[in-house]
């Protein structure tokens, strides 16, 4: 496994080691290991079927793992029933009890812990204020909007000071605007309460925005674990590069050197200057990742380490930014992204495009 950026100096609260889970012939988790430090926000990011939800359910205790070990604050909880784990969880559909009022929903975990009535009332009031739902205690969940239900679920999952908070795609049912404001609110709440959090999503933007660290999952494995910037800028595999952000995927091999950089001959025939770590220089086939926002329009070939004349295939206007598809003389097609509304270029326009040697990343060939 790749270096994970570490959980820093923070003491690990959650430690999953070599978790394995199969459903008949389907392998849902293939020896997953993960530690989460105190107060840390870790996101499990991956497509559906990648095992991220299975891992979350295993941590919560709703799925038994076939092999491996799960520790919470140093205690082995692998075989502990969910009720005794002391973990707060927010479900994708919120799972609010429809027959209980908001206040009774939030009081539920406290009642189960035998907290005194007066104390329960005080803490329910307090958390309702924290999630800005004061005065909503007597309502039933169905009388609330989606965003409000979401906040009740969050309040219920945190009111008993859980050792760990789990969130299973909690924002997927909300519209974009509400989702963005809820994401910020969650992050504030999480930091204010110092909650150790494991968050599951398939939305890479959400993961980049919220997380201290991201675990990118695919086919029951963690493909890469690291800080959001490390995941984006230094993807460890072709899958990570393609799943997190957009990427132009190029294949080639080292063909020599040029001005202190490695020279790579692409399968398309183009030759590029690329910053490669020394270890990769001797390698045969290379997989290269070029982010669309790294490619620029050039006036002069000397403005970048790599410059190519290109023909515009398509211009996509996206409001805050613009996307262009261009074709090089070799036939290689690249996607290019610029900030702002961009120049309204007609298809067929010829322009010079380019990028520097450090803008391109090599990932292991798969």
């Amino acid at each position: 496994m790749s270096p994970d950026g570490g959980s820093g100096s923070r003491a690990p609260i959650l430690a999953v080691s070599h978790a394995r889970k199969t459903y008949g012939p389907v392998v849902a988790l293939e020896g997953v290991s993960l530690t989460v430090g105190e107060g840390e926000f870790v996101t499990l990011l991956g497509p559906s079927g990648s095992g991220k939800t299975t891992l979350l359910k295993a941590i919560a205790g709703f799925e038994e793992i076939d092999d491996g070990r799960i520790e919470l604050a140093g205690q082995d909880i692998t075989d502990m029933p969910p009720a005794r784990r002391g973990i707060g969880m927010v479900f994708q559909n919120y799972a609010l009890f429809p027959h209980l009022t908001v206040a009774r929903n939030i009081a539920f975990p406290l009642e189960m812990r035998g907290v005194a009535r007066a104390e329960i009332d005080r803490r329910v009031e307090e958390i309702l204020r924290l999630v800005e739902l004061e005065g909503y205690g007597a309502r039933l969940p169905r009388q609330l909007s989606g965003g409000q239900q979401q906040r009740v679920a969050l309040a219920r999952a945190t009111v008993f000071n859980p050792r760990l908070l789990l969130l299973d795609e909690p924002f997927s049912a909300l519209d974009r605007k509400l989702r963005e404001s809820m994401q910020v609110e969650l992050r504030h709440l999480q930091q204010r309460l110092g909650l150790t959090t494991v968050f599951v999503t398939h939305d890479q933007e959400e993961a980049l925005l919220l997380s201290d660290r991201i675990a990118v999952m695919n086919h029951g494995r963690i493909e890469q674990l690291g800080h959001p910037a490390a995941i984006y800028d230094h993807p460890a595999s072709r899958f990570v590069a393609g799943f997190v952000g957009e990427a132009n995927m190029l294949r080639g091999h080292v063909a020599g050197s040029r001005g202190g950089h490695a020279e790579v001959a692409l399968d398309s025939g183009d030759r590029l200057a690329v910053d490669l770590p020394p270890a990769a220089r001797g390698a045969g086939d290379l997989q290269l990742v070029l982010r669309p926002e790294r490619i620029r329009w050039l006036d002069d070939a000397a403005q970048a380490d790599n410059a190519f004349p290109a023909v515009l295939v398509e211009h996509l206007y996206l409001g805050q930014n613009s996307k262009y598809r261009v074709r090089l003389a070799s036939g290689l097609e690249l996607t290019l992204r610029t900030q702002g509304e961009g120049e309204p270029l007609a298809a067929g326009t010829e322009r010079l495009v380019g990028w520097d040697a450090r803008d391109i990343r090599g990932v292991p060939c798969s």
Partner: protein
Amino acid sequence: MQLTAATAARPAGRRVRLSRAGRYRLLYAALAAPGVLLLAVVFVYPLLDLMRLSFENGSLAHYEEVVSGGLFGTVFWNTVRIALIVTIACAVLGYPVAHFLATASRGWALFGLLCVVLPFWTSLLVRTYAWMILLGNNGIINKLLVGAGLVERPLPLLHNEFGVLVGMVHVLLPYFVFPVYAVMLRVDRTLMAAAEGLGAPLWQVLRRIYLPLTLPGIAAGGTLVFILSLGFFITPALLGGGKVMMIALLIEQQVGQMLNWGMAAAMCMTLVAAILLAYAAFKRLGRRNAP
């Protein structure tokens, strides 16, 4: 085809402009008419006629007799008591069955459904005779018990209240299971997982979440079983052997042996009133706790 039907339902000759919704309402009314008519002829008319009979000569004499007469009172409360026992027994036995059906894998659920439905499809009379074969003094159960030396004399299982209860619970169990099963299918399973995750032991999940959420089903099934029990005839008649008196038997006696139609009609009306009352009570219970 629907359109022609709708046109046909419109009174001929007159140009009445009806909205689309209005035309459909008319069509539905026309389609429902035969059924409503049948019910009116074979149910409502006899009921009204019975009511007329019960007020013979415009007097309340029969009702006075029903209310003051010791026999009807005794039998009435005995019926209510038996109906309650049967309802509770059906609930205790049926609730876990419904839960099993609602949560089992497809194969097991199908098998379980067949087990519940097959007796349901079998004639009531056949099933009641089957219980006579099982429970009688020379029945299978007693033969086994005596043969094994567990008891010296055959146990009195038939021609008493026990036999009646066993038969009624058996016959009425599906009426409880199906409504509860239907409600359980709609209960979101993640709610139970959520409750467990929030620290609730299994019995608390049941008491605080599952039972309240399935209460509408319990109320519906309970209503059915209780009301059907109040008017049950064949099973208590055969398994009770004339020793267990229930209202339906008493009414039959009034008609068949005493030829006292007025008295029987008054009893019928009282039974109908009791059933409506029970229905209203259960309905209230179900609505108050509906999610």
